């Protein structure tokens, strides 16, 4: 859309669509039920010694009707395209060509899975001394599926959403682990607040059932091993359990939503982010404190939903921040969903908006003293995302009454 002059007062933005497909199931009712029943789907066996949260069974056909499209995607793209479709359905804009053609899209993405058999075959041949010049070329030329590249490219989740669901107003892909998820929503909201856009699809997807990803985090000893434990109870063996899941939101200006009669889940009031250098202890704690004050230091009927990873030292630094606000109920999505990297912050926003729309915070899932019950309906939820390595973000989501 054509942008008007810079606005003195930010335009109000609503979350009008939520799409969730995770290790706990698909759709909002299934998630609400699972959260309140304290369900956790952690797999300690199939990737042992690593713990992962596998995707619950999903009927991809429901959102990706063409088998040909499904074949062109790897799991992370299928999960994301599926969750994006759920979000569009939830917002009531699925198939609305007029809106989809001017809808912004910002996706936070990593990359697609490798062909593990091809990789292992090459390394074994090399180990046996089979490393003549051109050996790698020959193997890759002969063994890589040509379309695998398209299933690996970061921006092809957005590309697949455009193809399958017809979202074409814009297509931007942010990379950079947890922070990419924060920034995707932050920029989508900033564009709406400034009148640069009316409506946006934003989110991310992650396939945690991948040994090539486990490898990347194993280099830094970040993987949770042997036995599942809630995020706040990993002092003895810190780390995160990779989770599979997709979380997408439809965000739009209040005026745009009202004009089409769309009902909001919640108001997305503000998103702030920073990049602590993390050279000295305490930097993350003070960065979170400063982000908190930028949100206006919320007090009234507030809860916190955090994407805390369980990795150290960042989780301890976040705990120090939370201790300073110990009156507020906290929920850690990493406990129920595992760590979904780029998707963790959109996932936090999704369950925050869901909670606000249902007038309750879901039950704690942790026997540590970190998570307390919340009897009153929350009016505000602050979503926190502090990346395992870099990046800190915070959002204020508010109930619309």
């Amino acid at each position, binding site marked *: 859309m*054509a*942008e*008007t*002059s810079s606005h003195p007062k930010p335009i109000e933005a609503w979350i009008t669509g939520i799409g969730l497909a995770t290790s706990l199931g698909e759709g909002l009712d299934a998630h609400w039920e699972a959260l309140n029943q304290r369900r956790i789907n952690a797999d300690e066996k199939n990737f042992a010694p690593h713990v992962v949260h596998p995707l619950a069974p999903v009927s991809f056909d429901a959102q990706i009707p063409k088998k040909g499209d499904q074949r062109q995607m790897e799991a992370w793209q299928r999960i994301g395209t599926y969750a994006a479709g759920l979000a569009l359905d939830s917002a009531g804009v699925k198939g609305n060509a007029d809106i989809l053609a001017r809808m912004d899209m910002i996706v936070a993405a990593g990359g697609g899975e490798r062909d593990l058999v091809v*990789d*292992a075959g090459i*390394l074994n041949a*090399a180990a*046996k001394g089979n490393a003549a010049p*051109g050996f790698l*070329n*020959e193997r*890759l*030329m002969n063994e*890589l599926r040509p379309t*695998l*590249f*398209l299933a*690996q*490219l*970061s*921006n*092809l989740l*957005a*590309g*697949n959403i*455009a*193809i399958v669901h017809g*979202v*074409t*107003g*814009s*297509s*931007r*892909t942010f*990379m*950079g*682990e947890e*922070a*990419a998820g924060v920034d995707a929503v*932050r*920029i989508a909201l900033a564009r709406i607040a*400034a009148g*640069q856009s009316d409506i946006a699809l934003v989110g991310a997807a992650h396939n945690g059932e991948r040994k090539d990803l*486990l*490898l*990347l*985090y*194993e*280099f830094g*000893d*970040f*993987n949770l091993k042997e036995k599942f434990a809630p995020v706040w109870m990993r002092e003895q063996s810190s780390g995160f359990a990779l989770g599979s899941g997709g979380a997408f939101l439809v965000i739009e200006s209040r005026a745009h939503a009202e004009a089409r009669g769309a009902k909001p889940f919640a108001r997305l009031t503000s998103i702030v*982010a920073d*990049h602590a*250098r993390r050279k000295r202890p305490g930097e993350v704690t003070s960065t979170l404190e400063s982000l908190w004050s930028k949100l206006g230091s919320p007090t009234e009927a507030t809860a916190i939903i955090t994407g805390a990873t369980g990795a150290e030292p960042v989780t301890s630094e976040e705990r120090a921040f939370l201790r300073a606000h110990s009156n507020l109920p906290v929920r850690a999505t990493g406990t129920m969903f595992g760590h979904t990297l780029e998707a963790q912050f959109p996932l936090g926003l999704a369950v925050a908006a869901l909670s606000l729309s249902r007038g309750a915070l879901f039950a704690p899932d942790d026997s540590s003293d970190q998570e307390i019950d919340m009897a009153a309906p929350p009016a505000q939820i602050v979503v926190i995302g502090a990346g395992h*390595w870099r*990046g*800190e*973000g915070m959002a204020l989501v508010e109930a619309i009454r």
Partner: protein
Amino acid sequence: MTAMRDKSGRPVVVVTGMGVVTSLGSGKSDNWARLCAGESGIRTITRFPTDGLRTTMAGTIDFVPVEPFSSTDLSERLADIATEEAIAQAGIGRAGDFPGPLFLAVAPVELEWPQRHELGHVIGTDTEIDYDQMLRVSGGGAFKTYHRRFLFGSVADHLAETFGTKGSPISLSTACASGATAIQLGVEAIRRSEADAALCVATDGSVNPEALIRFSLLSALSTHNDPPHAAVRPFSKNRDGFVMAEGAGALVLESYEAATARGAKILGIMAGCGELADSFHRTRSSPDGKPIIGCVRNALADAGVTIEQIDYINAHGTGTPENDKMEYLGISSVFGERARQIPVSSNKSMVGHTLSAAGAVEAVFSLLTLEHQRIPPTINYDVPDPAIPFDVVPNAARDARVTTVMSNSFGFGGQNASLILTREPV
């Protein structure tokens, strides 16, 4: 005094610093001289064995040593070089203290073959190698640096710390439109008055065996290996694909007001940005050209200029049969008869396709075109394609009056982005 706000009442966004590195060399002056001389940076690959490959040339940057090689390390070095040049020219902030956010276009990052082979060496020859074995040896700190290096955010992390940009640095990919998207994000941040300045960087050091083979398996690359300098043939009838290349471009963007207030030299105006996604196919454009047409129109509308005001088009011009045909369809649909009159040249004929970096590299070249009032040519143009009757500025640079440039970028995944750059505020 010229207005500090554009026709839509938004802050005017100016460029006050630029840096570039390509296969033609490092820095604006070297690149500009060689570009206008019609030189090619495409050469036979020596970085790794090319036995068994259909394509054996690329626009590699071999004058920036990276040992042991990884594409991510090279991307980071190239980004450093371009950024240093841009910030030095802008004279903004203090060393290591850039007063605004970073928007970085960077290729997707992953562990590469030299590192995988390192894991293989540690596993040894007594055990069958698989990912379980790789996982077994990868923890405990022996490969700690690989974690940081192969995170998607690692290059941005490095740049943010080195140059002291503010806030959360954004790494982005819109495939071969990434460089233009980085600039667009910077323009939008300044228009929202979130920042007075933004650092927009795009970098790509992707010429490694697997990256080349991936494009090769999609039949996207030229196989015109000999001589390599004649491989990229945009808009020619005998064009047969693009040529991978490395490079980086960096731009310091500022609000006109902030730049003027600190007495900075204005190098050009980022007058408008347009985008529109294509939902037709993962690698091909919609045959009706509508997404490209819409993208170009969005850019013109955003800048508030008419087709009559555009006097040079810096084409995406990859030299693939499909891209050049679709770019002609898009431009001719919007510009009508004027499409035959406006000079349309492809920098890629000389530097190759710098992929994630191309949009920013070509924005720098577009601004140099405005500064020097001289249009770099499309080289290797010996067999015109009658279906593409552009004035491609064939083979030799041309002096011309240039006030307003459109620079196009298109990419896999339906990515389309166009920038409008001017000498003076519009």
